[in-house]
């Protein structure tokens, strides 16, 4: 190491002195220190503890999660939002990494593994969110308008050829959805003798983009969709009537020939977290709202491009009465 300690040292000393002088002028930059002190004080007060909120990847869920989370924060809780798919979220109950899944569309398989009845009991049902999930076959609004009879499944075969694409091998194409959802469309198509082939979009993004484009360009499209979903604010899809759902008609996946049941969306929580109790547990238990409420927040997020947190705050401000009811 060939160095010139003298010169380098001198320059370094010079700069150090300048720095010291500068900092003296800045007199410690009060605002950071002040906030630090304030934070320390605040930390002493609240005793709500932590809330680990799973955030599953769809906008409606984000709406629920951030509204509940924001209210919890106002109660003095520290909320950790964790971006996770459903399976991982449920796995996290046992390890304490996840406390709440705020919107569950029904996962019998996971319930079997993690609820007390059959599984390890790390998770439990905290009741409905008040939202009703409606799953079914949908077409873009322009199509429903021009061919109203298409909204009955019995007329679908007349139009099958219009729905054909490069993927459907000569039949009409039915757009299956993101694999996260339970789908019986292949069975329904074959059991109702429909001249359609199910092609899976593979992701929610792909389905949304397909419906958007179909409406915009007046293209023929029929596919699996569901509400509440923010897309309805932009493109109000129309539901096609299938033979109505009856108890048990979906028990054998291969024999399904009826519509999907309406799903009561649920809140799932970690058993140990519920056992600990606290204001956040009560909040999650009490939380309930309507599809319109959720669609409103989802629209803020997806339509207006607001940050989920900001969207939640805006809704809370506008609906203080509903929020107060959850605190009850």
């Amino acid at each position: 190491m060939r160095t010139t300690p003298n010169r380098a040292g001198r320059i370094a000393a010079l700069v150090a002195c300048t720095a010291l002088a500068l900092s003296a002028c800045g007199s410690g930059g009060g605002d950071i220190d002040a906030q630090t002190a304030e934070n320390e004080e605040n930390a002493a007060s609240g005793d709500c503890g932590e809330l680990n909120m799973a955030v599953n990847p769809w906008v409606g869920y984000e709406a629920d999660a951030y509204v509940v989370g924001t209210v919890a924060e106002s109660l003095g809780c520290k909320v950790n939002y964790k971006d996770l798919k459903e399976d991982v979220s449920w796995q996290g109950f046992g390890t304490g990494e996840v406390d709440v899944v705020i919107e569950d569309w029904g996962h019998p398989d996971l319930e079997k593994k993690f609820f007390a009845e059959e599984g390890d009991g790390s998770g439990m049902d905290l009741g409905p969110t008040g939202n009703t999930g409606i799953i079914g076959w949908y077409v873009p609004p322009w199509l429903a308008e021009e061919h109203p009879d298409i909204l009955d499944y019995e007329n679908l075969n007349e139009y099958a050829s219009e729905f054909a694409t490069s993927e459907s091998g000569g039949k009409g194409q039915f757009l299956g959805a993101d694999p996260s959802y339970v789908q019986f469309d292949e069975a329904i198509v074959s059991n109702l003798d429909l001249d359609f082939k199910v092609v899976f979009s593979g992701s929610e993004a792909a389905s949304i983009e397909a419906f958007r484009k179909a409406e915009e360009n007046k293209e023929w499209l029929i596919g699996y969709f569901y509400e509440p979903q923010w897309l309805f604010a932009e493109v109000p899809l129309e539901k096609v009537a299938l033979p109505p759902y009856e108890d048990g008609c979906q028990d054998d996946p291969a024999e399904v020939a009826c519509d999907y049941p309406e799903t009561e969306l649920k809140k799932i929580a970690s058993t140990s977290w519920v056992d600990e109790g606290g204001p956040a547990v009560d909040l999650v238990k009490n939380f309930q709202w309507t599809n319109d409420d959720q669609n409103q927040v989802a629209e803020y997020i997806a339509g207006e491009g607001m940050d989920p947190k900001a969207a939640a705050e805006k809704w809370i401000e506008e609906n203080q009465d509903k929020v107060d009811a959850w605190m009850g």
Partner: protein
Amino acid sequence: MTTRAPAPSKEAQPDAPERDGLPRWVPVLAILVGWIALWALLRGQDTLALAGRERTDVMRWLGDFRDGVIASRSTNPVVAFTNGVGEVIRSVFGWLQELVSVPAFPRPVPQVGWLGVTALAAWVGLAVAGVRMALLVAATFVSFGVLGFWEEGIDLLLVTGLSVGVVVLLGLPLAVAMGTSPRARAVITPVLDAMQTMPTFVYLLPIVLFFGIGVSGAVVCTLIYALPPLIRIGGHGIRSVSPTAIEATDSTGQTRWQRLVKVQLPMARKTLVVGLNQSTMAALSMAIIASYVDGPGLGEPVLSALIRNDVGSSLVPGLLIVLTAIMLDRTTTAASQRAESAARGVGLRGRQRQVVLAVTGVVALVCVYLSRTYFSLAQFPDTGWGPRLSEALGSLTDAVVGFLSAPAEVFKNAVSYGLLNPLQNLLADSPWWLAAGAITLIALALGGVRAVVSTVLCLAGILFFGLWNDTMLTLTMVLVATLLVMAIAVVVGVWMARRPRVDLLLRPLLDAGQTIPAFCYLIPVLALFDPTRFTAIFAAVVYAAPPAIKLVADGVKAVPETTLEASRSTGTNAWQEITQVQLPIARGSLVLAANQGLLYVLAMIVIGGLVGAGALGYDVVLGFARSEEWGLGAAAGITIVLLGIMLDRIAQAAAARQGVSKRQSLLARARGGTRRAA
């Protein structure tokens, strides 16, 4: 990101194919004709297509195995150990985060604010890689802040750094084992193949079970993908240390350890650095996937924009990932070159340099101090540029999509009806034994006996896992995509090789195409092409074409000027020059480009599953999305690995016959930029 083509080798001379007597396409054509004839008679029989929800015993067994592991997790000592490891990772990461990226409670800001972090990073860049790299580093860091992704950007760097640290700890000893013991090499190589081709979605959830949600699971998943380049390339570097030097130093009576640390490792240093660089790129490419399990970083905003179908908002963090990749690539490359020359004491600037470093170091420390003191130097002020840029990018994308949608539709239909459907009919509607037999014969014609052995083993494995029909559908798309990649690579590659200006212009675009996460452009591509197989192919082409183009361009450029002069002296025109001289001589590069293109296309299968391509990619996505289908996903993942190994071995054997050395293909594969979407 820097792909080098092999110099045209002697064997790759134009007259090479006549060695076997017949050009190789003749038997291949004969096989195809025979296949089509039989297909016409037997189509639709024994296609092994599974009905919608049908699952095989193997898939159920895989699912049960996974359930068993979950059930035993509270009692399993392995899980206790891995949970411990996960805890360590999380706490180290948490500490680092509070240091530089998230508020260190009770402070409202991190211990070191943005100015300090940027200054320190730039100083490190200056010290190891020079002024220009320091500026690049500073620009990258500042753009994190300006666009409103400071925390995410720094988190991404932290996760990448942490993963690469572990990669070095685990990978170096394994690279040494690969480099010094042929037996270890034989054992490790197939494991690395599997690690690199197995879709992350298959092991993401089990890994999270063992190591926990968040950064710990993310780091371990990243490790699985980022380890192989260092081990492969490093092992290769150690293996190719001059045997004379080893013999000469052995003759001085050195011990094995002395040989390793004094001779092999120092002499392989350059290659080790290349390996490390590639591992870093691979680690970075896992950013998006990691955010599926709450891994911190720039992947998170990309995904959350994706669920809102907001193209602009996903492009901004996506471009920051590109910028980060370019920064890491260029600085590590520059650093290794510089270290080389610095070790030699080149120039007398040593003193000057130390003075500069000392002074700038002090300046950086002052910045650190200031960033601990002033709020606006600690937390990046909100500029509002990020949303504005997303909006602009969003409308730009809309405009482009609107402009292109009509021709896109025509092109999509042409490829789908003209190429995709016929090929798919042949592959997927043939009885399985006919398709398998034909593939084996083609492997024999292209790659000889060695290729056949791998092919038969892989086909047997594919059959065993029960997704034969889906495999044929996927294979169809892979072949069509590779064909398109090669068509583009030849046209653009030759263009770049003949026009230096075009080359200069296109290279950064190619780098971006290779590093930008596919999730960022899924929506516009879907808007153009709907959820179809073609969309999947298009995404694969975007990803696979850049390395192939670079390989072709470099190969054509490597054609000796004297050869071109000689041909011009006979009065050839440009077309003749390209087809008669440049392409034939660069044939080694073309073969290599095809091999690489194929592997890169394979890496996008799962993305294909997300955009309507169905088949194996969809099976993997389904297994990831629904826990009861995990067995299907795992079987599909293993099948993808087998398909990848099979295609790779056939291509390698074919390339070896073309005189492309294994080394070239290894390095090209490793360097082409190892990014995989899922």
